[in-house]
């Protein structure tokens, strides 16, 4: 990669510099020839007007001083008549452009300079050479060619060094991602990709990988907890069930006792299944259903349906069940799980509220604009310091053990809240307990 980068840089620099060099050289050469042509036609004109003597005078005039123009006027036999060149520099035919070296006095020294000139024949057979000292151009071209080599070398160096540095930088970062990935594969799920802080594409990749890992870890943790709980919490009731069967057989009982034991066992199996189902549901909610699969749920209608389902039961228990439901409140969610959460809350509220009490169910929008439903009862409530505790699995408060239920009701509600990114708030209802779940509100279905 570094080499490719360097080669590309060198080619680009060469092409650019080559173009510049070529354009400059051609332009300067053209300028020189143009000047010479203009001068020749001027001199030819003068010759026509003033004859060979007049032309000699002009040339002699122009040859004074340090000018860069070169002149030589000769007779038919190329004997010099006037000009600042001593002799015809090189064989040439009339009309030819010629290049030659000549001796130029600079101060006390004589220096060899390069010149470009044209051979012109005047009527009468006189030869006129008009030229131009191009030593400066030659030097410029030489310098340009020289610097081209330097620039090429520099480009090669910079290209290679830059390419290497860049490659090393990227390779090091990709290496770090690979290393982290290997560590994660080796079992350390807590490892995360390092960010360079530059927010470039590699950083974005690392961030996305990290977000993905967070999600996977959360899912795995949820799953692990479900299996842990299933193992832990189903073992003891299964053991109890087994013991009952074993003891029944040991007792050598009559038909009636057998039957009674079997019926009890079936009841226990049913309870076990209920617990098992609740655990699976919690696991499902906690490990997160596909957020994109969630749909618009009318909280008002779903809550209303649940209230309607429980209304006769509340009535029977002598509890006043009151609904305060604002209509058309929508949230994004799983309708089945939301209904189940409302059912569990209402179930609990009715279970713990004594006859003559009240249960209020409300749906609305709170001060921060979130949609919520709330179930508030006038039962014994839950002490403040146990509020977080009751959201854990299987926690049942001392003193409420006589009431039936798997003790999973609120944990499921908590899991449903987590899945919906909803806030679950427990507070005292003086007397009683109010449980509120507040969702990000969906403004239109």
């Amino acid at each position, binding site marked *: 990669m570094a080499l490719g980068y360097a080669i590309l840089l060198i080619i680009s620099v060469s092409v650019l510099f080559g173009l510049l060099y070529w354009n400059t050289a051609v332009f300067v050469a053209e300028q020189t020839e143009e000047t010479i042509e203009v001068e020749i036609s001027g001199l030819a004109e003068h010759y026509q007007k003033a004859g060979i003597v007049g032309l000699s005078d002009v040339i002699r005039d122009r040859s004074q001083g340090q000018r860069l123009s070169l002149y030589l006027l000769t007779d038919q036999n190329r004997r010099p008549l006037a000009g600042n060149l001593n002799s015809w520099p090189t064989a040439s035919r009339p009309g030819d452009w010629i290049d030659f070296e000549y001796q130029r006095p600079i101060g006390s020294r004589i220096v060899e300079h390069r010149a470009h000139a044209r051979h012109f024949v005047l009527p009468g057979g006189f030869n006129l050479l008009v030229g131009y000292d191009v030593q400066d151009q030659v030097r410029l071209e030489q310098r340009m060619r020289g610097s081209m080599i330097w620039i090429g070398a520099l480009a090669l160096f910079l290209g290679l060094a830059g390419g290497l540095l860049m490659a090393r930088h990227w390779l090091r970062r990709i290496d770090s991602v690979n290393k982290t990935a290997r560590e994660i594969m080796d079992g350390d799920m807590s490892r995360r990709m390092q960010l360079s802080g530059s927010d470039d594409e590699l950083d974005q990749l690392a961030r996305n990988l990290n977000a993905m890992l967070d999600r996977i870890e959360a899912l795995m943790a949820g799953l692990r907890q479900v299996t842990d709980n299933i193992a832990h919490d189903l073992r003891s009731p299964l053991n109890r069930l087994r013991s009952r069967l074993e003891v029944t057989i040991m007792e050598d009982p009559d038909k009636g006792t057998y039957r009674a034991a079997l019926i009890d066992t079936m009841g226990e199996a049913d309870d076990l*299944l*209920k617990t098992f189902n609740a655990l699976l549901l919690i696991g499902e909610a906690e490990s997160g259903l596909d957020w994109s699969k969630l749909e618009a749920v009318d909280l008002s209608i779903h809550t209303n*349906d649940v209230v*309607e389902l429980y209304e*006769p*039961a509340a009535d029977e228990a002598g509890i006043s069940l009151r609904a305060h439901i604002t209509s058309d409140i929508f949230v994004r969610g799983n309708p089945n799980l939301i209904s*189940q959460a409302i*059912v569990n809350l209402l*179930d609990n509220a009715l279970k713990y509220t004594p006859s003559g009490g009240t249960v209020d169910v409300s749906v609305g929008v709170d001060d921060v604009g979130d949609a919520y439903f709330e179930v508030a009862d006038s039962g014994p409530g839950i002490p403040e310091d146990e509020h977080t505790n009751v959201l854990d699995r299987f926690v049942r408060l001392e003193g409420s053990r006589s009431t039936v239920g798997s003790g999973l009701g609120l944990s499921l509600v908590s899991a449903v809240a987590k899945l919906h990114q909803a806030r679950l708030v427990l507070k005292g209802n003086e007397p009683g307990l109010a449980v509120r779940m507040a969702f990000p509100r969906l403004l239109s279905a």
Partner: protein
Amino acid sequence: MRILIVEDDTDAATYIAKALGEAGHVVDMAANGEDALEIASDSHEVLIVDRMMPKLDGIQLVEYLRGDGVVTPVLFLSALGKVDDRVEGLRAGGDDYLVKPFAMAELIARVEALGRRKGTPETQTKLVCGDLEMDLITRDVRRGESKIDLQPREFKLLEYLMRNASRVVTRTMLLENVWGYHFDPQTNVIDVHISRLRGKIDKGFDKPLLETVRGAGYRLNAAD
């Protein structure tokens, strides 16, 4: 009724067959989807199909049968109990979906409800059960001479019971079909709804129609 059980767990299939036999039905068994294709015939009134089986699985089997024009009601049995799984089963052509583990009473009630479906056209506008009459269009309910006022949900509940008259319906069936819930509330909220309905249709009449079946559910008895 003649019923075909398609289930690769032969022990489980045998228990189900025994229970259905006790309830007075004739049972055939197939251990996988391919066998079921050979055994299934017009004489079966209900097919009980396990979802996960070797060779041809339950979903494929039912899709195949439906594609072949077989309309026999199908009850899926499955260990997969999520809402998505249920939807998948019903979409493949299943008529009901029961998640394992289940109570035999539940299974029998559902199988019998499915078997009845054949003879009860959904197109009729009037349901009659003894002297109890329900007009589905005017939403009038009468027992004998007296008119009975029902709340919308009570109407739906009674309609379901009448469509399944003389058969046991379980609490879960009621929750699913009348309320649309696929989970069980802990307290017996359904019982209270039933006793309210009973207060409206049976109170003051000599012969009670709505009967509680212990350990199973309820039955609306068609008076002879």
